[in-house]
């Protein structure tokens, strides 16, 4: 019996050892990858559709032809998962899309190359975007593009309610009163998703946000945030605001298109959705009203991440510089409607999209969502309660979020 067991154990042990020897990365430490100039690059993107894929492929091909470095673009069906697999196997894509909420995790484990400060056009990026991609004082990656939230108004319902251009709300009180006027039958004045990524605009208008601009300090339970959520709650209770789920819609844009809401708070992606699903709905975009602390909105952004383990980081940096150049960003915005992340492309974008100017104007006062490692989970938890805000106490909700956020930055 004993010999058999020994034999089995030895076989298992030798098996494990053999396998360990096979794995290339098992013994290596965290040293950065050896560099091979001119080595082909892989670009991994999470594409919104064919238009975006084609535009990125064309841009990368053009850069390849000019630089002589081969580069292939791959679209990920699940970007986060494919990135994680790449980092774990030490063969990550060289250049990739990266959301602001996942940057801290990858920065912490050293997967992400901090190259932002070496960019020639660093000063051209919007400051708030640079803050979004700065972790521990290091500017990690070049913002790809961005979007902000503004108020979208159904012009037919607006006129029907007897409202004119002069009635466009510029304060919270005015927003409440036009919402009341627009509420009738199955239509509610303002319908938006019941989550931080929408209600948060009121926090910024009151002078607050869940964390400070660099996501190093939790500021969830401030009076400004309580005041903002209380304002939203009062209007939800009055029935002049509703969440998309309350009216049976998946998001604000759907409720707006189905005329269940006369106004909504969304980003510039709503124009594409309305064009394809609800082409008959007439609308206009205006800036959100100012709160007690002035104008405010939230912004969402992605960056061009470069892997530390890339074997051609110089080539990757050159590629990113080409992809974030003014002309290229204008080309991208023409192809799939995104807003350029650099100030020098703003005028061209405004000329091309006159009806959407409020979105890009928002860049001046927009705040980012928290980017501290683990903050996405805290926001998900907060959203769970915000979906039921009508029956909850804003101060209690925010106190719990404060505790959760503090645990991330301690």
């Amino acid at each position, binding site marked *: 019996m004993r010999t058999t067991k020994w034999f089995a154990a030895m076989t298992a042990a030798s098996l*494990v050892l053999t396998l360990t020897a096979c794995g290339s990365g098992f013994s290596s430490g965290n040293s950065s990858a050896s560099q091979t100039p001119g080595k082909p690059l892989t670009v991994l993107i999470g594409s919104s559709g064919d238009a975006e894929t084609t535009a990125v492929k064309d841009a990368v091909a053009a850069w390849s032809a000019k630089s002589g470095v081969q580069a292939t673009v791959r679209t990920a069906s699940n970007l986060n998962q494919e990135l994680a697999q790449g980092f774990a196997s030490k063969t990550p894509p060289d250049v990739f899309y990266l959301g602001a909420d996942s940057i801290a995790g990858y920065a912490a484990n050293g997967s992400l190359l901090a190259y932002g400060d070496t960019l020639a056009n660093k000063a051209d990026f919007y400051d708030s975007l640079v803050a979004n991609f700065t972790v521990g004082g290091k500017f990690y990656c070049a913002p790809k593009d961005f979007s902000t939230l503004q108020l979208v108004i159904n012009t037919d319902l607006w006129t029907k309610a007897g409202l004119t251009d002069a009635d466009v709300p510029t304060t919270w009180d005015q927003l409440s009163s036009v919402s009341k006027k627009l509420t009738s039958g199955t239509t509610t004045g303002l319908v938006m998703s019941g989550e931080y990524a929408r209600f948060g605009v009121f926090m910024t208008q009151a002078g607050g946000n869940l964390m400070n601009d660099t996501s190093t300090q939790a500021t969830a339970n401030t009076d400004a945030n309580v005041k903002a959520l209380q304002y939203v709650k009062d209007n939800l209770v009055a029935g002049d605001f509703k969440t998309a789920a309350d009216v*049976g819609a998946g998001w604000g844009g759907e409720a707006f298109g189905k005329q269940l809401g006369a106004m909504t708070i969304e980003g510039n992606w709503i124009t594409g959705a309305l064009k394809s699903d609800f082409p008959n709905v007439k609308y206009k975009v205006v800036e959100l009203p100012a709160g007690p602390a002035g104008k405010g909105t939230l912004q969402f952004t992605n960056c061009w991440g470069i892997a530390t383990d890339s074997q051609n980081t110089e080539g990757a940096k050159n590629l990113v510089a080409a992809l974030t150049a003014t002309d290229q960003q204008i080309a991208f915005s023409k192809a799939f409607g995104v807003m350029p992340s650099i100030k020098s492309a703003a005028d061209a974008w405004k000329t091309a999209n006159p009806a959407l100017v409020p979105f890009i104007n928002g860049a001046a006062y927009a705040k980012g969502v928290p980017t501290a490692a683990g903050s996405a*989970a805290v926001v998900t938890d907060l959203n769970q309660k915000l979906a039921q805000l009508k029956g909850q106490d804003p101060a209690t909700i925010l106190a719990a979020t404060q505790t959760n956020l503090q645990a991330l930055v301690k």
Partner: protein
Amino acid sequence: MSTGTVTVTPEVSAPPRHHGGIRRRDAAAGWLFTAPVLVILGLFLAVPVVMALWVSVSDWSGRGSPFSSGVGFVGGANYQALVAGGLTTSDFGIALKNNLWYVLLVVPIQTALSLLLALLVNRQTIKGRGFFRTAFYFPSVTSSVAITVLWLFLFSTTGAINKLIAFFGAKGPNWFNEPAAVFHFGATSGPDWMMKGSALGMSWWDWLGGPSVAMCALMSMAIFTTSGTFMLIYLAALQNLSPEVFEAAEVDGASSWKAFWYVTLPQLRATTFTVVTLGMIGCWQVFDQIYTATQGGPAKTTLTPAYLSYSASFGQQKWGVGAAIAFVLFAIIIVFTLVPRWLLRERTPRAARARKAVA
């Protein structure tokens, strides 16, 4: 639903052991012939399990190999995070609660339903038996992702289910977006003792609230897809029963209900154990429907430990916690398969008599 493979090894007495040269050569040949399987099992089972076990007690952050020099041993810290309080704990509590209700409701219903279906299609008198057998088994053959997408359409606000409900004059819920717990019956808070007491960051009120409306839609799908498979297992068992026993029961004057309760069902004990065990394992591992349909929403009410493990690892780079959840889930599954084993154990007549005497 993914169901694990269960190998049932019959209990055999150990063969007599031999020692000597010839037998030794046999042993070598035996190892040679089993080597391919050992290698495959080692490569795809033992090594990943050992790696995951190591990750669950390490601070591996997802970059490079978990066995590289920079990765440190942190003991039970990742497991502690699951019970120590904070967001990880409450997420784990919510996931456990959701999955517990899922198991408690899906397993009995799918077992009963599959037995019923098997009894129906086993009857000699029924017309078109072949058709019904195929029809009931069909959902099991279809990919779970395809069925999930079908379910999303059926249970949308303006979908077929709500149209049907509207036909009867009621208003259907917004199924996959409705986080309300069904046993709360619309109430938003309960008695004081239920609100105050808590375990794993969740009040008793929340623990006892039952599944959300969204989870109910997913549960109905699980029952729909798996009962066909289990029907097949029951059907095979039913066709194995010897007709003499039923004839004897008939001669003794047993009604068809009594024959089912006292003759059929006891003979299906082993099959029921298989079905319940497979059902439990499948239910605790529920992942693909969640991944396709809800990603844990609305309001985390369809979050399960399997999905939480995935999202902690791939979404938040908390690989240690993700692996720890996987091992806790493994332990839960082991415990839950022991329960039907104990409930459905063979009771010898003497033991039964002894119990009666005590009572």
